């Protein structure tokens, strides 16, 4: 039988379990059990909601009720004797990668990276704000690129509101909040890009508030059809390269850069493979899992990530889950700000197989490998121009975005599109107007949803998606 509801925990020294609770109380039976433990008050436990909080309690309290600790990280209840009914029929039977890596990607203190830095004295870390960072340049200089993608829904915004207006998206504020609360102390530098006005201003705010940090800003070309585009972007990358050479205290040779491109090509290949599996057999690989496996790539050294993904793909290929009665959806979000994992899981649980997405995780900037022959900087620039994944912040007159979306629907055989846009995200809203016109012209059902990284109640969006799915299933 399947493992039951899990609570992610870390064990501290005095046999206390520090529980960064993510209790998904979809199931009253477990809710009652957890309540019986007397650890949580009623206000934390509401049906159908996921709660984020931290509590300490003694291990024995759990053991008493038939829960036990596995892997030192997870509390899992395996005693099913008291189970009054058979399990619901909607749980996957194989081990879930979301459980394994959730803590790593949701930890707002970046403890894994802090630990890495402590073990690699003298090594430098560069934070990468979304999107399209040429991580190869950072890697070739011997530094670690780390994705800084906001604070998720575990971070309370207290200081950043004084620097930005109330109509600015969450990721800008939570990223600043991370800095202002000292959680980015491990960064030697951070890089922003010309993706939107708030991101542009965030770079200046960082410069002013964190003088010890090297703040870089990459101006991406907006004109994709000019013959000078590659030349311009190459010059921009060279400027960044020399800045990083100064910070790292070593020169970046073409050979070193080629070697970095080679390693990231390998990572790209594996991520493409994950996307292929998910698109062809979404019952064997959920989007939440695919997402987590990609996102940890922005938090680990690339070599380590490659090994993890290789192992994961081998395990996923062994899976043989039964396909469910679900609609097949393309998820489009112009993502920079990231939706909470619970929301992604909720979309799937509401009855969708997500065949493709534009989360842009795991440095998934390019759909093809970057050539190794020729001048590496120029190859990086050309890859951005010709093979980068479409997003709300790239404007390419050679292929309208809406056509790209419609093609994606046709190629994957999806039945519908869900547009998941971050609140106050202008690029996403501009895109939505284009997408909506095209989808209506083509007669493709679609649903528009708004999210915020800090949201933690998902009932409303879930009901909306479920109703959308049902309107298609019971047509």
């Amino acid at each position: 039988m399947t493992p039951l509801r899990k609570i992610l925990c870390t064990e501290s020294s005095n046999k206390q379990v520090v529980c960064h609770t993510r209790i998904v109380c979809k199931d009253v039976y477990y809710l009652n059990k957890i309540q019986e433990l007397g650890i949580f008050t009623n206000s934390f436990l509401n049906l159908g909601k996921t709660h984020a909080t931290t509590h300490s309690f003694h291990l024995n309290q759990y053991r008493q009720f038939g829960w036990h600790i596995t892997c030192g990280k997870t509390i899992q209840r395996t005693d099913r004797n008291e189970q009054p009914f058979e399990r619901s029929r909607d749980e996957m039977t194989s081990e879930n990668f979301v459980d394994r890596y959730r803590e790593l990607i949701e930890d707002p203190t970046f403890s894994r990276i802090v630990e890495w830095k402590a073990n690699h004295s003298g090594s430098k870390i560069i934070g990468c704000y979304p999107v399209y960072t040429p991580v190869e340049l950072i890697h070739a200089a011997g530094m670690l690129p780390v994705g800084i993608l906001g604070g998720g829904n575990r971070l309370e915004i207290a200081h950043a509101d004084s620097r930005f207006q109330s109509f600015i998206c969450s990721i800008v504020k939570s990223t600043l909040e991370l800095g202002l609360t000292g959680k980015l102390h491990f960064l030697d530098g951070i890089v922003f890009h010309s993706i939107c006005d708030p991101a542009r201003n965030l770079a200046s705010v960082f410069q002013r508030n964190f003088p010890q940090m090297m703040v870089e800003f990459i101006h991406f070309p907006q004109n994709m059809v000019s013959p000078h585009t590659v030349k311009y972007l190459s010059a921009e990358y060279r400027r960044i390269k020399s800045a990083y050479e100064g910070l790292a205290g070593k020169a970046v040779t073409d050979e070193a850069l080629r070697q970095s491109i080679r390693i990231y090509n390998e990572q790209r290949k594996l991520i493409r493979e994950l996307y292929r599996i998910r698109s062809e057999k979404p019952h064997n690989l959920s989007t939440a899992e695919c997402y987590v496996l990609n996102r940890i790539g922005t938090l680990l050294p690339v070599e380590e990530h490659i090994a993890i993904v290789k192992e994961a793909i081998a395990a996923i290929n062994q899976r043989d889950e039964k396909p469910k009665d679900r609609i097949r959806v393309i998820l489009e979000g112009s993502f920079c700000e990231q939706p909470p994992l619970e929301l992604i899981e909720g979309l799937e649980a509401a009855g969708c197989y997500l065949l493709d997405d534009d989360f842009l995780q795991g440095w998934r900037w390019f759909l093809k490998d970057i050539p190794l022959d020729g001048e590496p900087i120029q190859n990086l620039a050309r890859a951005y121009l010709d093979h980068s994944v479409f997003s709300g912040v790239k404007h390419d007159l050679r292929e309208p975005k809406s056509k790209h979306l419609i093609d994606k629907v046709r190629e994957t055989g999806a039945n519908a599109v869900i547009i998941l846009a971050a609140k106050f995200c202008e690029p996403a809203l501009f895109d939505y107007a284009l997408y909506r016109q095209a989808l209506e012209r083509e007669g493709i059902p679609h649903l528009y949803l708004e999210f915020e990284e800090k949201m933690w109640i998902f009932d409303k969006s879930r009901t909306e998606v479920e109703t959308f799915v049902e309107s298609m299933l019971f047509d």
Partner: protein
Amino acid sequence: MSFVAGIDMGAKSTKVLILDEEKRIQGRSVVKTRVDFPAVAKEAVNTALQQAGLKEKDLSYIATTGFGRYNVPFRDIQITEITSVARGAVFLFPKTRCVLDIGAQSTRAMRILGTGKVQNFRTNDKCAAGAGGFIERAAKYLEVKIEEVGDLSIQATKPQTISSVCAVLAESEIINHVSSGEKIGDILRGVHNSLASRALALIKRAGLEDEVTFVGGVARQKGMVKALEETVKTKVNVSEEPDMIGALGAALLALRRLEKIRQDREKETTTEETRAV
């Protein structure tokens, strides 16, 4: 003969309806929702089964709806209350294109197609002032049984104004009306009017159509129906048991799925036979 069950697990009560293949009601039950949802669902289903003279194994398909829809482990499918209520409403009132559902905790308005398919919908914000829970609090304060609220309200001659959009503040308005000696019926009608005007805003956002079908527990209160009719200024349909519409819609959809599964199976058998030939 096959039977299906629709279980509507609401915030206040759990409703079960058992239908046969001819869409005839064979059994029904209403049980107060308690914390142990699976046990409540089991109890409600057993009562309805008993009434129908059936056993658990006679149920070929079970569809759940309502906010506790995921908490019934023995379900075949869960359906949102929006989808199921729309199906139930259009089954009883085929001409309706607009449905308003006011339950204990939430209010939903939807515009639907002739098939019962939901085209557009809006739900209330997380606020008690828009749903039945508000009436319950008012009744408690006025020391009136909830069953009597509808009849008292419909007798109102001078409805009082409850203008606040917040349930807590509205309560102090009610206190003011009590202290100035207003009749209980008039105050209750004020509560109904306040709910109706909030419902109108939702209906308009979803898309107001000629014939509104009003469902959910609150629709049992005559005064509320009257208030709604006066506010939306169109025909308002109310069935005899408006709180059972969700369970009815779920059961109807269960029948649809059962039929589909059978068709698929037959198709498979035919294909296999063709292959064998």
